[in-house]
């Protein structure tokens, strides 16, 4: 994240160097609006054909910050394998993968590395109830997806304001995301009546084969993944969704209600959707940074070298989130502090304090009584939420047991013991006084026969 302060004119915090891989340079024209939008956001685009030699890194440093695959990837570029792409993401690079029904096996394998499974070769998402009458009349494959109901409602990735009431045109291949993986989320999914099938023999009825069919909202049309190092990867099942043709088209989907089938018109949200998706994927928004962590005893200011059990401590953390080219205070109500020594002993939700006018810091604080277990504790703020970078702030602090003179004195139960010890002491003094100077006779008495 320190790259933010290194001169990069782009809005992205990762950097501005983007590599676009196409099947052939002639395709550049069909994506001209999309690429222009990226350039307007200050990205330096390098457009290459997939057959040419690509070096993603040099001397352990990335050559590019973002990678866009708008190619079928029938074979890997020279000098690269799936491992090379994975390493690119592991180095913090962001990746956008756009697929199509005739995608190549290498692209499928690459997606599989991220737990994303594209449907079989030459399958397309079909929907007889939501196809576009202009683009999809023949095969019912260009579908119109209503954005209000089929887009993930997360303000950090796709804000509803940008796409509400509009529709997204899609023609491509279905994919599914592993539902048990917390790093993966579907952001656009197919309407309920859609299903994924091969587009050959369309006059014959589809018959269930041995493999299960993807259908309805199980079909993900666009999904995202944020890796544990906070690099982001986006998967889109349709290259055409990014094309000029689909950006400019006026969707006219059929609409089936009862026995009536009509054609409606809706507003096209492709451009806005793709813009928000790329803004999130290329780290222009939803990036969180911890600015400050303070902890101290209640009533003091500086952090002590160590704490004592059952002391009261105040913990403060300040975080900022980046969007719209600026840092803003992070606003949330579920930031939690954990005191962990192998297991969490305390978990408490932090309260937010207003940072004041113009502050870029979201200040979260709380006061906690330390447990009566001593040892080395970690004060952890583990904040992982959908759409935001993963935050894990750990401060290691020791908690000491009571010193011998910090125990309570004069426990009422122990009064007899105190008095006995005292009386022993006094008794000793009195006894010695009398013994020494009491003039008692110590000579043996004469013994009389008993």
């Amino acid at each position, binding site marked *: 994240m320190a790259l933010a302060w290194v001169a990069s004119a782009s809005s992205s915090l990762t950097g501005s160097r983007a590599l676009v891989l196409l099947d052939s340079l002639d395709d550049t024209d069909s994506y001209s609006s999309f690429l222009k939008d990226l350039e307007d956001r200050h990205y330096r685009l390098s457009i290459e054909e997939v057959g040419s030699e690509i070096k993603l890194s040099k001397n352990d440093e990335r050559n590019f910050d973002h990678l866009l695959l708008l190619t079928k990837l029938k074979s890997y570029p020279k000098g690269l394998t799936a491992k090379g792409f994975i390493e690119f993401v592991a180095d913090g690079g962001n990746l956008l993968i756009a697929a199509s029904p005739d995608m190549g096996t290498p692209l499928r394998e690459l997606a599989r590395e991220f737990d994303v499974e594209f449907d079989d070769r030459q399958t397309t998402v*079909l929907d*007889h*109830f939501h196809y576009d009458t202009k683009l999809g009349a023949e095969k*019912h494959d260009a579908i119109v997806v209503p954005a209000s109901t089929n887009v993930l409602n997360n303000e950090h990735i796709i804000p509803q304001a940008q796409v509400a009431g509009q529709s997204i045109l899609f023609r491509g291949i279905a994919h599914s995301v592993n*539902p*048990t993986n*917390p790093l993966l989320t579907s952001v656009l999914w197919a309407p*309920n*009546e859609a*299903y994924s099938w091969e587009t050959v023999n*369309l*006059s*014959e*009825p*589809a*018959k*269930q084969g041995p493999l*299960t*069919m993807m*259908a309805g*909202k199980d079909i993900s049309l666009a999904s995202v993944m944020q890796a544990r190092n906070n690099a982001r990867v986006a998967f889109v099942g349709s290259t055409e969704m990014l094309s000029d043709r689909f950006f400019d088209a006026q969707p006219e989907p*059929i609409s*089936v209600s*009862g*026995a009536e*089938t009509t054609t409606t018109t809706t507003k096209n949200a492709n451009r806005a959707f793709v813009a928000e998706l790329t803004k999130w994927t290329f780290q222009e928004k939803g990036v969180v940074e911890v600015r400050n962590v303070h902890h101290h005893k209640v009533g003091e200011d500086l952090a002590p070298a160590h704490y004592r059990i059952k002391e009261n401590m105040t913990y403060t953390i300040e975080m900022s989130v980046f969007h719209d080219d600026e840092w803003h205070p992070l606003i949330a109500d*579920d930031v*939690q502090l*954990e005191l962990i020594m192998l297991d969490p*002993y305390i*978990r*408490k*939700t932090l309260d937010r304090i207003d940072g004041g006018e113009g502050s870029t810091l979201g200040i979260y604080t709380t006061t906690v*009584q330390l*447990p*009566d277990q001593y040892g080395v504790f970690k004060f952890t703020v583990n904040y*992982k*939420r*959908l759409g935001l970078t993963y935050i894990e702030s750990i401060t290691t602090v020791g908690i000491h047991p009571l010193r011998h*003179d910090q125990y309570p*004195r004069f*426990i*009422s*139960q122990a*009064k*007899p013991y105190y*008095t*006995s010890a005292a*009386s022993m002491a006094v008794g*000793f*003094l009195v006894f010695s006084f*009398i013994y*020494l*100077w*009491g*003039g*008692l*006779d110590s*000579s*043996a008495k004469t013994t009389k026969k008993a």
Partner: protein
Amino acid sequence: MLLRATSLAVVVGALASAVTAASLWPVNDITLSILDKARSQTKELHLDYPTALSTPVLAQAGEVVKLSFKIGEHNGKKALPHQAMIRFQSKDEYADSIMVVGSVSKSSGRGRIEIDLASSTADERFKYNTRQYNMELLIGGYIQDLDSFKYDLGTIEIEAPASNPAIRPARVAYTAQPEIHHQFRPDQKLINVVVSGTFTALVLAPWLILALLWSRLNIRFEPLRALAQNPKDIFMALLFMVSLFSIETTLYSYWVGVTLFPTLQQLGVWSVVAAVSGRSALSALQKRRLQRTGGDSGAKKEL
């Protein structure tokens, strides 16, 4: 005149319908049946589009749910659809959407969609829980002028198997965790103040006994009077007692709060004082005793 008007109306009407084209897909004889394990029919319900079932149908764990229909003709040919499926939408908070594919015979146009709940090919999600689903029949295809057919069939309740139900894979999501409050060890319960007070008094009781026994003895402070003549001796004696007392107070202050090193310093000082003054006091006593008994100094004297 009227004839011409009506025929004109008919012609116009026919033209109009031709322009708006699109008729509904011809699906007839829609029958929902439940078959038991032996594949003998236990229930049969005929459905009329667009009426849905009035009451929910129940399908038990090992049974077979079957929907059969007949595809009619369009323009003289069988209107074979591409999609002939039922979509089940569960009515609980998970809202699972399960699509079941059917098959349509090309020759007869008869279609059939079957779910054998006992077999492993049925969708696993039917086996998560006994719950109600909404059924929708979806027929769609690529024949011009025919609109896709969606028929809301009604509610069905599907029982999950009692043994070996399927378990929904847990979705891990990053959310706030429940708060944990530390249970502090409770303060020791102390004994009743009255009891400890009584015992405190009791502990002091032996003083009475001591005073009693000592009073029986013949304690006269003769040496003190003798010592009074010599101020040095008195001083030493006093100093000794004071030093003993100070050692004890130092120990008390250590207990109450002073740390180790100042305590050790104090103890050191007072020990030396005690030793010196003690020796001096004792030798004074010795002198006096020797005077009294008139014997030689040193050992061997019975005391």
